[in-house]
């Protein structure tokens, strides 16, 4: 009975969010923020991957921007320099990035904890240097411009309004897939690894292999996001994939609440809206930004999303009690 009521509420909330998402890009609603909402969507995709990797499996990555950047650059180079169809370029980028993550996963996961963090950090730095230095392919620090739009048949995604729907379609599909994974045998195996590697191994879970596979999956997500990013902006430069970018991704995952796939939207959303609002504060923005992050971490260690859910749950219970009791 209780679970039934609960799930009815969940559906209501989800429906409300979907309607909100659907209306955002319209001029008479929040149209002026379409661009921001697109970025929230792109970064949500990367953040979901990090949630699976860090929140569920307990493996730190401080170099997720490397995979994000790989997707972006492979897409950009293939579609602009070599005239490959952007969709095919996107697919090739995802396969390449996933395979790359898979193969570096085996040596990287011989390390644990801080050492794993250091290794992924190193990976991020190396990729960033490559983006800057392979000037003849990447355009170096200046980056590349004039990357083609995505299109289906004659329909070109040439306005923010159109791309908004494309990107959020990808985002929601990826969220749904991730949710399914989390609630499955695979998801339990991942959480088991986080809980106790020794126990997971004793129950027949191939710990190393699951870690490598989830790293590869998170890399594929990041790569897809990177591809969408370049076909949206039509511009790419190494700056978007430096160390700070990796840190920001971790921040988004943590704010969203590592143990929830849907929290990724909140993580990405909060971070982006915050930096947008703080732009008015000029040079103070980084200080205020840091302060807010600290407050969130101190008072909501489970992440913003989890806290919001808690508050919502409490309100709902109070409302129900009032309704039922005389």
């Amino acid at each position, binding site marked *: 009975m209780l679970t039934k009521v609960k799930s009815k509420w969940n559906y209501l909330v989800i429906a409300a969010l979907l309607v909100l998402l659907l209306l955002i890009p319209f001029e008479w609603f929040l149209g002026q923020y379409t661009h921001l909402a697109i970025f929230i969507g792109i970064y949500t995709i990367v953040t979901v991957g990090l949630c699976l990797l860090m929140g569920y499996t307990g493996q730190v990555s401080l170099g997720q921007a490397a995979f994000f950047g790989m997707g972006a650059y492979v897409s950009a180079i293939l579609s602009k320099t070599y005239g490959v169809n952007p969709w095919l370029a996107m697919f090739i980028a995802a396969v390449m990035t996933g395979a790359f993550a898979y193969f570096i996963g085996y040596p990287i996961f011989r390390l644990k904890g801080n050492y794993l963090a250091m290794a992924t950090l190193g990976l991020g730095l190396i990729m960033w240097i490559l983006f800057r230095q392979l000037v003849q392919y990447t355009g170096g620090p200046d980056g590349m411009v004039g990357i083609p739009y995505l299109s289906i048949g004659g329909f070109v995604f040439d306005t923010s309004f159109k791309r908004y729907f494309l990107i959020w379609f990808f985002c929601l599909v990826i969220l749904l*897939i991730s949710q*399914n*994974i989390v609630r*499955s*045998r*695979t*998801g*339990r*195996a991942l*959480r*088991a690894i*986080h*809980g*106790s590697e*020794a*126990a*997971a*191994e*004793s*129950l*027949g*879970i*191939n*710990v190393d292999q699951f870690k490598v*596979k989830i790293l590869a*999956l998170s890399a594929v997500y990041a790569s897809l996001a990177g591809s969408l990013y370049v076909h949206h902006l039509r511009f790419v430069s190494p700056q978007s994939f430096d160390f700070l970018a990796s840190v920001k991704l971790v921040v988004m995952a943590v704010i969203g609440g590592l*143990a929830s796939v849907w929290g990724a939207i909140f993580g990405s959303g909060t971070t982006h809206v915050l930096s947008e609002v703080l732009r008015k504060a000029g040079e103070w923005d980084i200080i205020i930004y840091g302060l807010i992050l600290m407050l969130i971490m101190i008072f909501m260690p489970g992440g913003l999303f989890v806290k919001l859910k808690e508050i919502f749950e409490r309100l709902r219970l109070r409302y129900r009690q009032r309704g039922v009791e005389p």
Partner: protein
Amino acid sequence: MSGSEILETKSLTKAFGGLVALDKIDLSLQAGKITAIIGPNGAGKTTLFNLIAGVYPVSSGQIYFQGKILNKIPAHKRAAMGIVRTFQHVHLFGNMTVLENVMSGRHPRSSYGFLESAFRLPKARREEESISLNAIKYLNLVGLGTHAEHDALSLPLGQQKLLAIARAMATDPRLILLDEPGAGLNTLEKRQLSDLIRNIREMGISVVLVEHDMPLVMGLAEWVIVLDSGQKIAEGTAAQVQKNPKVIAAYLGEEVE
């Protein structure tokens, strides 16, 4: 010995650097029995467990499980063969509910992977149903059915230990290794534990336990193996072992210190 050995070791040796933790141990465990491994601290009991479970490689000698050599088989494959263990420090998955912990134990008895999970393919749904049915069955076996939706770590220690056994049983083992299952339990919980272990044996599953609690061991074990300083010093029924002068010396020697 007669035909049906579940587990056998031949001059099994494990050395950590210069320290020989286990020295040429020959064991032969009968299928369908409760066997206890006892001995003072540092005797090598946990090392023996870890070798059987595949936590680290053997230095020399062989381990056979149902006649098949185990030495080179990685730990995660041993569960599918029918060997499972519990831990002295429980090692429950704190990020899951009680039921999910037991469902994790079905891992080697199911096979759907990332793709089937991601798209909820029919195979995933089918297996998921049998996973939860079996998990509930094993949860009821240890008497925790009513706690299914609780957080695993919200249970008191005694129930956590039972849950760990349920989780291990969910792998449908032929051999279950229990590492100090009685540690930290009160008298009532110990009695429940003994009943559970006898139940497991009745199901035709071989049980090996490492245990410090002598009354518990003597009440349960049909065969007792005594280790001291990495060597097997005695084996036999509980009554035989208790009278063995070497065993008495090993224990008294420790207690007098």
